[in-house]
């Protein structure tokens, strides 16, 4: 709860007003906080408690720093106008003033008080977000950062997926938050979906924890925020906040093993005879590689290559044929398949709903 005793909806209104007033033309034109779906990445459009606490605190800090700015700006502007040298003063020096202990004390003590107030307001929010206890019915997700994709595991549900996270919407009266444990398989990454929470890093040998309780359904976008190598820019995040029925349906679909489709036998053989299965896993088949994303339910995802391309037939074919055409520097090698093999394996992928 912020120190400022305003209704949180008022605070949120203020935040968005300040923001939109300043940059209304630009922001609304392209993708404002009110666009239907997917949602934007505006830190002042929070949809979850941590993001909201941060936004409220931020408005408070902005107001205080805004006042400080206004005061000093006025003093500065006044001094350069009022005390500008005029031609008639040439040759005469003004009174030589060396200092004033009282003034120094005043402009030391007031900043100290401001710092105390700001610090106390901030400390409350730090504690509220970081030390929030995990309720027993929270959803547990383990996020593992890779160069350049996200692995998501739901340990209690037996689900392994990649890049697109599905979590349940949380109602303020009976919250169902999602708690993420953040790990890394290689270098440092950072999980940042601005409208759901502040970012937290994924650092090897240093597990981290974060949580969110989104109160709106929809798609929320984000991306890796800690430079992790050549394709850091295309390590995108897509979080789908689902209503209870949709989430349950998604879970059920993910828990099933891979669909068996007789028409895809040829493709499956290509997949399993080439090195594909060394990196990728397809549930219920011998393919059990963990270096690359789990492909069991590839067709349930909207994008491929961690958001670098839409999940379409042509993109999928291009990605498998030549990953560097979509994401140069990605660690997926070009498999040098013949056209026939390529078409077969793409058909196989397209059966993995």
């Amino acid at each position: 709860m912020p120190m400022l005793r305003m209704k949180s909806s008022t605070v949120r209104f203020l935040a968005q007003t300040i923001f939109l007033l300043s940059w209304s033309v630009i922001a609304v034109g392209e993708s404002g906080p009110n666009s239907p779906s997917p949602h934007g990445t505006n830190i002042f459009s929070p949809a979850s408690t941590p993001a909201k606490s941060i936004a409220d605190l931020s408005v408070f800090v902005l107001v205080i720093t805004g006042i400080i700015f206004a005061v000093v700006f006025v003093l500065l502007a006044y001094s350069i106008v009022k005390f500008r040298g005029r031609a008639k003063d040439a040759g005469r020096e003004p009174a030589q003033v060396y200092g004033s202990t009282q003034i120094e004390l005043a402009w030391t003590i007031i900043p100290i008080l401001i710092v105390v107030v700001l610090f106390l307001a901030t400390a409350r929010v730090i504690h509220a977000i970081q030390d929030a206890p995990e309720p027993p019915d929270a959803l547990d997700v383990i996020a593992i950062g890779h160069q350049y994709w996200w692995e998501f595991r739901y340990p209690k549900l037996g689900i392994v997926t990649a890049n697109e996270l599905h979590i349940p919407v949380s109602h303020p009266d009976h919250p169902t938050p999602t708690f993420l444990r953040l790990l890394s398989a290689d270098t440092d990454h950072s999980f940042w979906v601005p409208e759901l929470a502040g970012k937290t890093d994924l650092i090897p040998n240093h597990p981290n924890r974060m949580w969110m309780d989104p109160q709106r359904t929809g798609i929320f976008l984000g991306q890796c925020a800690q430079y992790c190598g050549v394709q850091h820019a295309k390590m995108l995040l897509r979080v789908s906040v689902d209503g209870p029925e949709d989430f349950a349906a998604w879970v059920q679909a993910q828990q099933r093993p891979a669909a068996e489709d007789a028409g895809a036998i040829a493709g499956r053989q290509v997949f399993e005879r080439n090195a594909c299965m060394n990196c990728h896993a397809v549930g219920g088949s011998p393919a059990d590689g963990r270096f690359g994303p789990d492909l069991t339910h590839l067709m349930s995802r909207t994008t491929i290559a961690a958001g670098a391309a839409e999940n379409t037939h042509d993109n999928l074919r291009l990605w498998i044929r030549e990953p560097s055409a979509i994401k140069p520097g990605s660690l997926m090698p070009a498999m040098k398949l013949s056209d026939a093999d390529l078409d077969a394996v793409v058909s196989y992928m397209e059966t993995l709903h």
Partner: protein
Amino acid sequence: MASDAITVPVGQVEARPWVDELHQWLATVDHKRLGILYIASALLFLVIGGVEALIIRIQLMHSHNNFVSPEVFNRMFTMHGTTMIFFVAMPVLFGFANYLVPLMIGARDMAFPRLNAFSFWLSFLGALLLYFSFLGGSGLYGAGSAPDVGWWSYAPLGARAFSPGHSSDYWTLALLVSGFGSIGTAINIIATILCLRCPGMKLNRMPLLVWMNLVMAGMVLLAITPLSAAQIMLLIDRYLGGHFFDTQAGGSAVLWMHFFWIFGHPEVYVLIIPCFAFMSEIIPVFSRKPIFGYPVMVAATVCIAFVSMSVWAHHMFTIGMNSYANSFFTLTTMAVGIPTGIKIFNWIGTMWGGRIQFKTAMLFSIAFLFQFLIAGLTGIMMAASPFDWQLSLSYFVVAHFHYVIVGGILFALFAAFYYWYPKMTGWMLSERLGKWHFWLFLIGFHMTFDVMHIPGLLGMPRRIYTYEPGRGWDILNLIITIGAFIQAIAILVFVSNLITSYFNGARAGNDPWDAWTLEWSTSSPPPSYNFAIVPTVTSRRPLWDLKHPEDPDSHYE
């Protein structure tokens, strides 16, 4: 009796062959020449670093642009940051310190002239080593490659496993070598200030520039060395099989972050404090009043130096420290804003009641005050760690630190150039070109860096070579890029001013600004021995006392 130069009638000295002149410059141990060498090499790397910035900005002009490949982009931002901090900002500030400190304390040279030269050449060698990586660093594909790990080279990205080849080693060695040069210069500055002051110049009569360079030098000793230590550890990891930052062996990536930022945060104060020094000399002269609150300015600077050693983990708010650590660093970071704010108030207090002359140097100083205020306030915003959990690693941070470095440090440096160029060369810089430089740069700076805060608030992370359309970032990035080009044009105006004024400028004389510190008592440029007779001083403004014998400062101190 006088501090006049010993004059030799013109016409009795033959012009030296250019080879001799070049040799004089390469072999010099004169602090003034070394100062100019530092400044000149910094200007060269400013242009190079600026070109790297323009490449970055062109690539980011719109989403999904293809101006450069991701590999090249990543090298560009790594080299831009490394160049600007280590081979522009530090050398230019060391250059001004080298030039001005002995003059301002009435000394003939620095305490260790040969160490001075050695330190400069170490620094220059470091720069050459870094840039040689473009040709010689055998990257993954055997082609020349500059480092691409960011200027922090976070572990484990800098490890052999993730940075094969030698690009990362060029980064490490270049900074290690120039770091030793920096330590040498810092030792020299401290010894000069403590041991070579002219008679009567007690510590509380030194010009503020001297005080602040003393504090800066002390900080260099404690700040650069952790980076050197960490880099030695990185080399041990990369070449001797060490495990300092090897997470597979139980090592800690976070430890590198702590070591880096224990260097990195005081480093930015090392950069800004000499700029405070420039402001504290220039603003009084162009307000025609002494600095308001000299003892408080000294105390605040020392206070900043101490407190700034305790704030480093505000660069690490997102790495998962516990709430107590985050709260502690929030508090110290906000606290360091207090002495900093006090200084801004003192500069305003200096202008208050004065008779302000709007020479180019003063225009840049006034802009510094506005911009440093804003930069400090965005810093306070990020000091609130939850706010930082959104702002960190985004373009908001990039905007903030460029606001300090360009809007603060570079503007103060421009002021210093316009103020002291006459002393160093004997010629005045053109006020006309100066005003063009100022207004063009001001417009370009604000167009770029005011706007740059917004993509950060809209979720744009840093160090990305491209971005998705539809996030609201496109037009903002375009405006930012245009502003960058306007700044580039302004820099060209500045460089042409430096060059044309050398040949066509008005003669400067000893004291063109009617100033009060000792460097204005000798000729422009000063003779190699600085002062014919070492001066004796009785107040903080010796030349004021001489010009106003009826009302000297010594009556009031």
